[in-house]
């Protein structure tokens, strides 16, 4: 296809991606170096019946004029990145100097908002992703053994947790897990502890969110593996059987190697999706014990008093994007190397 025809076909799509994906990345980069203007203060003499007092007031007009003149705010350099809500260098070095032992130091660091969110995001990503792959693989193996009339309905039910809106899915589970909901009250009976509440304990909240994540993403891995199982070469399986391989050995030495490329694909998609974990935290109302990087950004826009912390959100966004790149570089490089010949041909 000649260049100009190609361009004619691709420009709407490319333009949309440039304006709404590439430009915003540049825009947050710039934004992250600025912070809001400080309010302009004026000192006025307030004279009443009991004499004159000097009062400091916010000059609303001047403040507005300033922010209209320069909506980005004032230049702050890397100030936002290093403050307490982000990388918090000075707090960390303080904690390091004051810490009697490593445990105390780690505890202090994980209390800082950014590191608290980072620790949950990484834990979630690296627990959910392998669990999803294993669970999805087991379900796929089991469904594959079913008689074909049961396959359709089984796949239907299995797809439900995946297509459900994440916020809605987490709400549905949250209501059941509530201390007065069905699972919550069963847990109380099982552990014989009437005050047991999943919401009150940070550890249980983390477990709850991770279980939700596995429940939500497992169907994706299942469907991909299930389709992969349909393409396992029959001859190889049969010759393995003739050679006396048990069912386990057939799975281990024929099926698993055949599905390995799919594992890479699923991990790629899962790492992307799990790293942006956000809706479950809103749905489970879990921000007291678990926050994620995406939630921090959301919180900067929803911080109660109506002021939106653009600089802070932008800095967290940049740090998040850096995190995504570090996470995905190995897989993308691998995909690139293996897909090179295909694209050339």
């Amino acid at each position: 296809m000649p260049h100009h025809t190609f361009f004619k076909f691709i420009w709407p799509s490319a333009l949309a991606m440039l304006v709404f994906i590439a430009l915003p990345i540049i825009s947050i980069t710039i934004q992250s170096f600025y912070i809001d203007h400080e309010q302009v203060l004026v000192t006025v003499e307030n004279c009443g019946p009991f004499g004159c007092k000097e009062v400091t007031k916010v000059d609303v007009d001047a403040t507005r004029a300033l922010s209209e003149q320069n909506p980005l705010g004032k230049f702050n350099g890397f100030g936002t990145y290093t403050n307490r809500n982000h990388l918090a260098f000075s707090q960390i070095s303080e904690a390091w100097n004051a810490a009697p032992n490593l445990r105390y130091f780690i505890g202090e660091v994980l209390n800082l908002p950014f590191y608290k969110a980072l620790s949950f995001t990484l834990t979630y990503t690296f627990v959910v992703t392998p669990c999803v792959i294993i669970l999805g693989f087991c379900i796929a193996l089991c469904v594959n053994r079913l008689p074909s009339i049961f396959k359709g309905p089984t796949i239907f039910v299995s797809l439900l947790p995946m297509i459900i809106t994440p916020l809605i899915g987490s709400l549905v589970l949250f209501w059941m897990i509530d201390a007065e909901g069905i699972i919550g009250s069963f847990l109380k009976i099982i552990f014989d502890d009437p005050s047991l509440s999943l919401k009150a304990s940070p550890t249980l909240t983390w477990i709850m969110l991770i279980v939700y994540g596995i429940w939500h993403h497992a169907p994706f891995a299942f469907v991909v593996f299930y389709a992969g199982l349909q393409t396992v070469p029959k001859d190889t399986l049969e010759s393995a059987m003739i050679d006396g391989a048990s069912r386990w050995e057939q799975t281990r030495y024929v099926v698993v190697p055949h599905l390995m490329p799919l594992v890479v694909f699923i991990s790629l998609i899962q790492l992307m999706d799990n790293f942006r974990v956000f809706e479950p935290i809103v749905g489970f109302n879990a921000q007291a014990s678990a926050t994620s990087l995406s939630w921090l950004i959301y919180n900067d826009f929803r911080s109660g008093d109506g002021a939106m912390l653009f600089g802070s959100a932008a800095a967290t966004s940049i740090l998040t994007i850096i995190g995504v790149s570090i996470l995905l570089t190995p897989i993308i490089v691998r995909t690139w190397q293996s897909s090179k010949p295909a694209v050339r041909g």
Partner: protein
Amino acid sequence: MNKTSSKWLNLFSICFLVLWLVLACVPFLWTFWGSFKVQADFFSKQDWQNALFGVRTLVETGSSFTSDGYQGAWIQEGFWKAALNTAIVTVSVVTISLTLGTLGGYALARSGFRYAFWILIAALIFRAMPHITLVSGYLLPFFELGLWGHLSTTIIVLVAINQPFTLWMLHSFFLSIPKDLDESAMVDGCTRFQAFRHVIIPVMWPGVITTGLFSFLLAYNDFAITALLLTEENQTMVPKIASFLGSTQEQGNVMFAVAAVVSATAPLFVLVMFFQRQIVSGLTAGAVKG
């Protein structure tokens, strides 16, 4: 020996599968059933069985089932408006992103130049961007330009965010349509665009429907973008449900949220019921070919 072990394996695999199916569907059945009860039953302090039989519902409303939650959500809280907004947003997003995506995906599949590959890699990187980081880039410019809060802005943003995925899906679909088809039309004197219109468009619908399903899911399920880019009157269903939660203190409001949740889930159920095959094939297309 081999026979008994395979019998146990069968039994184990069936138990495992049944357990999974229960986990996958009971939450929905439970919430659906409970949405017709009052709050005192759905969150029962005394006995979990109340939610099944509706003891308090019978006392409070005179019947074991009540549609109070639905009435409260749809009429009193104006959930119908949110549903309408969702319909507008999803239909527009699906239509626009498929139009852009088919053109782009076709070009990428037929280009044969190196830069087509780089565009795909760029799209993959864009796909990895957490949506909310992009939103934080939109807000300030949108406020400055007065674009914030409108449905149309949100639609365009969702279309753009959807493009990387759409391009990948349709690109791999168009690769599976033989090149000879449109090239022979061009030998017969068609321009590239005419070949696309008369030869490719009639055969592309299976791929387009599959891709459309996923565009629909993205637009329908989104919370991060719709929650931050829309004004309260323009809210779609998902942020509306989130705003119900903010006011749970009042008695009865939780049931509004439950009813709204069930209402918002219904279209997704219908979707899976009718398009199960396309969803399965769509999920695997990227994997098996890539």
